[in-house]
């Protein structure tokens, strides 16, 4: 109940938007997720409660972008700062969603929400004030790459929401960066609607500082013939959850997901994915990697749902995990629920440590153990990092992972 009280004391009832009211109402019946439900069973309860401990902050301090702009043509947006956007060029347009469109879409989504499964989204939408919701409608082609930043300020709980409509035949590259400052909690929800024949290369890079927390949820709806590619990376969070829900609303769509989470110290980072095929000829290629060191805990749970209507679905899911310490833990649970019979579905999971034979080989060639481990790790990371758009040339993520982390 505390969190609801907190939101209410922070704002009087009149200042709450309609969406905030709906979500608060939904949360009221059970303000915290049920720890016994599958999705929250492994979640560290004290870490979750520390997420909610910080005071709610709706106005951020000035945000320092972590790396220089790639080129002039990149479009850079900061949620909470850039609210008025209207870019109309010859080939494309990027415009803010009207209040009505935004309300209508979010409300429609909320109607499908379930208390436990969508708790992070409900929390986000009850916290997000008008300024912290960015809604974009993107149309056209040859659109310059877009970067969207969300961040949480020190000692506070921030909520940011991003809603993107990708119009028909539109093709875009988008990188989302979520940054957590020291002792902060960030609740980030992203809603993506891909219309027919559109395609997006979406990247999510989330990294925190000392004791920062993140609840990151991503909700994607793909219409016919759309392609959704996602490269994601989560690291350096005391506690982070990344929840992905993708629905191929009429099938005939392509989804490629490559995600990675890296945990050290006593961190806990988890990824939950749910991919539903609601039409025939769907395609999914998913790989999720985890690396757990020290006393940390990495969790992956992925479910693929193929109902009767989704004939000729081709889905594969792979979970690859590296466990580097005696005290670390990895839990992985890939799940398939299949009713359609003409499908190709497969999944695989492995947990191991660095390959000793490879390490030995490199050492016999004069490479030190540290260097050899780094080489192995970089090949483990590279597959995911190279899938993240924009970042690869200017923003040296690999170096960051290998040396700073």
């Amino acid at each position: 109940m505390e969190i609801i009280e907190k939101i209410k004391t922070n704002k009087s009832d009149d200042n709450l938007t309609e969406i905030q009211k709906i979500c608060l109402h939904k949360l009221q019946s059970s303000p915290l997720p049920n720890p016994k439900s599958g999705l929250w069973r492994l979640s560290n309860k004290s870490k979750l409660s520390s997420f909610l401990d910080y005071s709610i902050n709706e106005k951020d301090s000035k945000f320092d972008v972590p790396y220089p702009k790639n080129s002039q043509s990149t479009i850079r947006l900061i949620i909470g700062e850039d609210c008025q956007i209207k870019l109309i060029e010859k080939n494309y347009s990027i415009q803010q969603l009207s209040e009505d469109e935004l309300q209508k879409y979010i409300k429609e989504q909320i109607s499908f929400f379930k208390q436990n499964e969508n708790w992070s989204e409900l929390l986000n939408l009850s916290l997000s004030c008008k300024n912290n919701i960015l809604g974009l409608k993107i149309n056209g082609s040859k659109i310059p790459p877009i970067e969207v930043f969300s961040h949480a300020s020190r000692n506070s709980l921030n909520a940011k929401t991003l809603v993107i409509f990708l119009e028909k035949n539109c093709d875009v590259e988008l990188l989302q960066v979520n940054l957590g400052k020291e002792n902060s909690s960030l609740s980030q929800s992203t809603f993506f609607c891909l219309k027919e024949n559109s395609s997006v290369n979406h990247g999510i890079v989330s990294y925190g500082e000392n004791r920062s927390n993140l609840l990151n949820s991503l909700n994607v709806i793909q219409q016919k013939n759309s392609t959704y590619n996602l490269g994601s990376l989560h690291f350096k969070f005391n506690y982070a959850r990344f929840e992905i829900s993708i629905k191929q609303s009429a099938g005939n769509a392509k989804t490629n997901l490559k995600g990675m989470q890296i945990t050290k110290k006593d961190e806990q980072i988890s990824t939950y994915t749910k991919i539903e095929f609601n039409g025939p000829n769907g395609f999914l290629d998913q790989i999720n990697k985890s690396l757990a060191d020290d006393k940390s805990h990495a969790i992956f749970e992925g479910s693929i749902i193929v109902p009767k209507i989704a004939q000729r679905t081709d889905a594969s899911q792979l979970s690859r995990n590296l466990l580097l310490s005696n005290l670390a833990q990895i839990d992985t649970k890939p799940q398939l629920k299949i009713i359609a019979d003409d499908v190709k579905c497969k999944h695989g999971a492995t947990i191991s440590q660095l390959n000793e034979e490879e390490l030995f080989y490199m050492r016999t060639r004069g490479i030190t153990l540290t260097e050899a481990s780094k080489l192995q790790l970089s090949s483990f990371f590279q597959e995911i990092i190279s899938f993240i758009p924009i970042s690869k040339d200017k923003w040296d993520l690999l170096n960051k992972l290998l040396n700073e982390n």
Partner: protein
Amino acid sequence: MVNENLVKDVVKEPYKYGFVTDIETEKIEKGLSEDIIKLISKKKEEPKFLLDFRLKAFQKWQKMKEPDWAALGYNKIDYQDIIYYSAPKQKEKISSLDEVDPKLLETFDKLGIPLTEQKKLTNVAVDAVFDSVSIATTFREELAEHGVIFCSISEAVKNHADLIEKYLGTVVPASDNYFAALNSAVFSDGSFVYIPKGVTCPMDLSSYFRINSGDSGQFERTLIIAEESSSVSYLEGCTAPMFDTNTLHAAVVELIALDDASIKYSTVQNWYAGDEEGIGGIFNFVTKRGKCLGKRSKISWSQVETGSAITWKYPSCILLGEESVGEFYSVALTNNLQQADTGTKMIHIGPKTKSTIVSKGISAGNSKNSYRGLVKMGTKATGSRNYSQCDSMLIGDQASANTFPYIKSQQPNSEIEHEASTCRISEDQLFYLQSRGIEFEEAVSMMVSGFCRDVFNQLPMEFAAEADKLLALKLEGSVG
């Protein structure tokens, strides 16, 4: 294109074990209470420690809730509407098979179980359990020569109480789960096997479970102990008559393997599955678990699950001893409205332990078939390995196949590999076989048999042949 109707019309073989043996039985009244448990214990002339074990389990059971996580859809079971003890009336003590009611022998004869002398040539010792009691155990003298004890658990309670007291409930404690607690409170009979140190059991041992009465549940308990450097292969078969009510079967099987011992436990489960509308059938809630206590010990489960309206079964291995090995080979076939939620747990505790899981699920009709498994590497399981493979085959677009493998590792110096795939009968392969003059249904059954080959190879020979036939029969009329 596969002609669905053609396939659906292919011979519809009725459940051939669905007959009822008309035999006078002794039943106690319906319901479950402390008094009933005391009555069962008294009828079986049990020592006090066992009655205490039962009562304790009953108290725990009363506080427990029926599990619902498997998401199996079935009507609520009224535990007070079940007869917890039913036994065919016969002379007090049987000294030889000749004294067994001929009707019973006939029943087992019909089921193809070699109880009578002329069939003993097959060299398999059989313990036949009819409703709540064990009817006969064959080859006892020959086994006794090697020091092997193979008898019903009630006899073992009387003659080997020390072993029962020492091991009963050590692998599956009474409070383990709802159905295990129920079984611990009311178990009626089952088999007991003890293989002494250094003995390789001279023949396969086998139990045959038969539910005959429609209103009594079957709660058998099996306990197998393999002492150091011993080995045994144990087979289990199950059938039941057709009733339009659901019968409850909640069994517990405990295996214990000491240093260098090996136990191979094979099951062909063919309980009555209910009719095409899903009326009747056995509710099969079974807890099977083996403990590899000793170094280099090995427990291997192989199962062919084709019957039961509902199957809830996870034969597991606790790998405690250094370099111990656990194996699980399973074929689960569901048709019509059957539901199966089966899989295994491999708990690696000791160092250098190894486990292999091969699971094949085939779902046809409107059935639901799930693989649910857990592989856990504990902090001390250094150098341990696991390999799991679960394949599902879907036949028809109404059936569902689910896989829920759960992997948990706390030991970096261990390796876990898991793979799963889902497919259907390939039309190209079917076409190829048909173009070579192989009948449609035979082609299908060949492909199913090929799909299950990895598991059938693990079954003892007689069982493998039976399992092949069983699958072919079960699938007839359902391929589409």
